[in-house]
């Protein structure tokens, strides 16, 4: 006997026999959907094994053979754990954990005996859906997983449904259920106490694969990024957008040259406060940076930052950094002044920025002497060096030749003369230091693509760049980019354009501006494509700003605006809980009202009557007519016989004989009320009125 349920689905009675093939196919469909986002990072053998387990189970079902024995199943589990260990080198952590979860869930197929096991696979599928967020929190994935959750819920209903005819109804129900859960999720999202670490407090391996700006620059280290189109950060600039030549995004200042590589000084992190450098008040750019997680601490800012958000620290050489590696996308608001400069260089600093290892010094001495010999002062020495790069056959290349380990810079300057930005910046800085001119290498990004759709600049890993800063007594630190001399196209049009020119076989530096523009002009189709990409990127950025970026600070400011600023921790949890309860009550009332609106008063009271009888052990079958039920109930409950018969006949008269006069309904209502005792569930009566219990 089934109760008429609110959502027209019934709960499994546990009497169901072995699930049939249809149920298994539905289950696998749900499972496959849940696993689908993982396919790209799961090992191929595991995906194949998952399919294999499913086929195996289907074969077992078709041939009605027994499911594999316990020994075989244990063997399979051990084999899976071993294989996962061999593949990842561990069974812990995100990747191996997900692989184990997927593999073991798939193995569950082999021992599905009843519907309870099916439900277990569904729940595991929900769990797998959750793990997808460990890899990406993009809006696209979020939307996809929402659909998957609806389908999984539908599968769960389908499994429990005695009548599997109407797929449409099942889908509608599950969409309704997920829809009802949405406001509850929203409340939790807004009010659940935030912790200022990643979304799930991810273990370290979640960002292990990231490549980004490294704090050690040696020939080839920036070069390895030039194929990487991952986004490093986005910059949303207020007012005038700086031109390509001005877009130097300062990251790390590397002042120490050791073992043929530029490194940052020890005790790089300096202070929360720095003297504001001298700058032109009218030339300030305000902007915000949306930084992708990099697992590093460098925050990139337009040359030269003068104001920073309170959460960041100043690093050496007017750079910005966080205290802990960034594992989530973060937004920073800051200000820069393009012409700002410092006017003092202490003795110690002078020494630090002219230090050079003896061997390097020796290897470059003759070249520097040659170039310095013709100069009168530091400035003309700089000009000479730049002229040397320009006229002595130096070329800019995306695939620089490898350099030896002994004196790579000498080899580059005299022999190969082919290099990427770090070669030129490195050689230039060293030549400065040989001549006792304070100089340092700055690693960061240069350029970036303007997204007219969202009006921000997108900077990719491939825009990574290195340049030099030289101390001139009268000007302070001056940015000099030797790459601009060798390959002005790189600076003026960006790496993307440069790559295009190289593909076309152009000799860099041979074309004038118009020719370059013609050469890199994009066809209309590509522009359309670009526009689409920009548009999607804009939506995605908003998603990260408003949804993923909703962290502790945002929560606090929201609460303050709601007048709940004083709430923390437990208080928040209680508020969330109470709000959820309220929403659930409102939803329940709306649903009841919707049901009630379709219901005539007589039907409503008849249902009360039936509920009361149900408590007394007489359950009306959904297909049982009221008269038949009345007769049956009256027979089973002789003490109430006349009352039951009277109420039933009143109901039949109202409902089917259309005798719907108000008085009749009122009398019927009173009869039902007096029968149910005005309320339902009186325990004493329940016991009395249950003769067959």
């Amino acid at each position: 006997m089934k109760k008429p349920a609110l959502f027209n689905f019934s709960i499994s009675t546990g009497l169901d026999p072995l699930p049939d093939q249809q149920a298994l196919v539905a289950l696998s469909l749900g499972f496959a959907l849940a696993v689908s986002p993982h396919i790209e990072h799961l090992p191929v053998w595991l995906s194949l094994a998952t399919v294999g387990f499913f086929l195996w189970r289907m074969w077992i079902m078709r041939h009605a053979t027994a499911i594999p024995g316990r020994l075989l199943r244990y063997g399979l589990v051990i084999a899976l754990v071993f294989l996962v260990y061999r593949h990842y080198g561990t069974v812990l952590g995100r990747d191996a954990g997900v692989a184990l979860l997927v593999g073991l869930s798939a193995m569950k197929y082999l021992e599905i005996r009843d519907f309870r096991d099916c439900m277990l696979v569904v729940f595991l599928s929900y769990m797998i859906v959750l793990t997808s967020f460990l890899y990406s929190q993009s809006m696209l994935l979020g939307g996809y997983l929402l659909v998957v959750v609806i389908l999984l819920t539908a599968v769960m209903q389908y499994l429990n449904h005695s009548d599997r005819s109407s797929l449409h109804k099942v889908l509608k129900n599950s969409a309704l259920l997920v829809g009802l859960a949405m406001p509850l999720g929203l409340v939790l999202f807004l009010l659940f106490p935030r912790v200022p670490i990643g979304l799930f407090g991810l273990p370290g391996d979640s960002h292990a694969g990231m490549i980004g700006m490294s704090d050690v620059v040696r020939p080839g280290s920036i070069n390895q990024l030039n194929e990487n189109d991952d986004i490093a950060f986005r910059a949303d600039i207020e007012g005038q957008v700086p031109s390509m030549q001005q877009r130097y995004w300062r990251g790390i200042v590397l002042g120490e040259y050791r073992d043929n590589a530029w490194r940052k000084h020890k005790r790089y992190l300096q202070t929360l406060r720095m003297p504001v450098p001298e700058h032109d008040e009218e030339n300030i750019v305000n902007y915000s940076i949306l930084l992708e997680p990099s697992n590093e601490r460098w925050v990139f800012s337009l040359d030269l930052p003068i104001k920073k958000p309170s959460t960041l620290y100043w690093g050496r050489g007017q750079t910005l950094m966080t205290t802990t590696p960034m594992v989530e996308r973060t937004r920073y608001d800051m200000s820069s002044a393009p012409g700002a400069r410092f006017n003092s260089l202490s003795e110690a600093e002078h020494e630090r920025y002219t230090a050079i290892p003896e061997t390097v010094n020796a290897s470059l001495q003759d070249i520097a002497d040659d170039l310095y010999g013709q100069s009168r002062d530091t400035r003309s020495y700089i000009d000479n060096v730049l002229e040397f790069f320009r006229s002595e056959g130096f070329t800019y290349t995306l695939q620089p030749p490898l350099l030896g380990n002994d004196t790579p810079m000498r080899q580059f300057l005299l022999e190969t003369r082919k290099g990427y930005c770090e070669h030129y910046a490195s050689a230039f800085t060293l030549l400065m230091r040989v001549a006792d001119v304070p100089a340092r290498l700055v690693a960061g990004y240069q350029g970036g693509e303007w997204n007219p759709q969202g009006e921000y600049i997108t900077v990719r890993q491939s825009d990574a760049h290195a340049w030099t800063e030289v101390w001139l007594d009268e000007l302070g630190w001056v940015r000099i980019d030797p790459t601009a001399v060798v390959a002005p196209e790189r600076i003026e049009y960006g790496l993307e354009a440069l790559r295009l020119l190289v593909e076309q076989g152009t000799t860099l530096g041979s074309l004038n501006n118009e020719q370059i523009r013609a050469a890199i002009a994009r066809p209309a189709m590509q522009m359309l494509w670009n526009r689409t990409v920009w548009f999607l990127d804009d939506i995605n950025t908003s998603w990260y700003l408003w949804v993923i970026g909703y962290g502790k600070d945002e929560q606090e400011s929201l609460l303050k605006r709601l007048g709940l600023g004083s709430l923390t921790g437990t208080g928040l949890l209680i508020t969330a809980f109470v709000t959820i309860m309220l929403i659930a009550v409102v939803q329940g009332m709306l649903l009841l009202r919707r049901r009630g609106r379709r219901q005539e008063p007589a039907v409503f009271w008849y249902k009360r009557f039936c509920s009361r009888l149900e408590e007394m052990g007489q359950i009306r079958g959904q297909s049982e007519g009221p008269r038949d039920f009345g007769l049956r109930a009256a027979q089973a409950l002789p003490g109430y016989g006349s009352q039951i018969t009277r109420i039933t006949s009143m109901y039949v008269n109202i409902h089917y004989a259309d005798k719907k006069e108000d008085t009749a309904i009122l009398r019927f209502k009173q009869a039902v009320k007096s029968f149910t005792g005005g309320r339902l569930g009186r325990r004493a009566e329940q016991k009395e009125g249950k003769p067959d219990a």
Partner: protein
Amino acid sequence: MNKDLPAIRDQLNSVILGKHHQIDLCLCSLLARGHLLIEDLPGMGKTILAHALANVMGLAFSRIQFTSDLLPADILGVSIFDAGSSQFSFHEGPIFSSVVLADEINRASPKTQSALLEAMEERQVSIEGRVRNLPASFFVIATQNPLEQAGTFPLPESQLDRFFMRIRLGYPDRASERSLLEGEDRRDRLEGLPAVIDEKQLLAWQQQVATINASQALLDYVQDLVEQSRNARHFRIGLSPRAALDLVHAARAWAMLMERDFVIPEDVQAVLEPVAGHRLSPVVTEQGDINIESGAVATLLELTPVP
């Protein structure tokens, strides 16, 4: 409402023993002006039932034994040249009767079958360009033997749909059979059966059926049933609108038989099997397995909640 109705039931029950429900269904079909198909083995009392019905109602009765060489003219009638008046005169066939028993309808050729079915549907016969009306109380009881299939033309589903009801008589229970064995010859009793009412009274009753109240809630239930039969995967073919109409009509007639002036869901449930059983094909059909069809109606009933 009417004391003649119980009297009729009593009379019929005295001839056909232990078949109260089937007799009620039979009367129900007659009241609703629908034709009846009795599917059963020979010797179950089909002919006696039909004959008794005609007698009690005071109606003319004729019987047509269907055979493979039966022609449409054998049922409808023929025009014969009368030498005396030098004119064709029409000789009415056995169908021009109030109660027609079409015995073993599946033995005749499809052509002959369809002649009968058309007459049933139209309640008139057109022969040689002239339309001849059948009696107002025209009522066909066709019988079909479900087991013997050799040399027969079983009625296809589309033809079955034209029958208002299909019932089975089934074997009598032990007590009824004993009194059958002890008692006098049924055919003799048949002769002595008095006419309780006349055709006029029957026609009045038939009109009264339409006045029985079917409430919105009840029509909801009928529609739910029909919809369920079209949605559920248990049935190959759902119920037609004609079936739905017949269902309401049968339920009304049933309510009238039960001496009520409104229909309740139980009425619909009582007539669902005879009205829908032959129009509903379950998905798995085993040849000759009649139980599975009654199972289909039971399933339909089970699946559809009563509003």
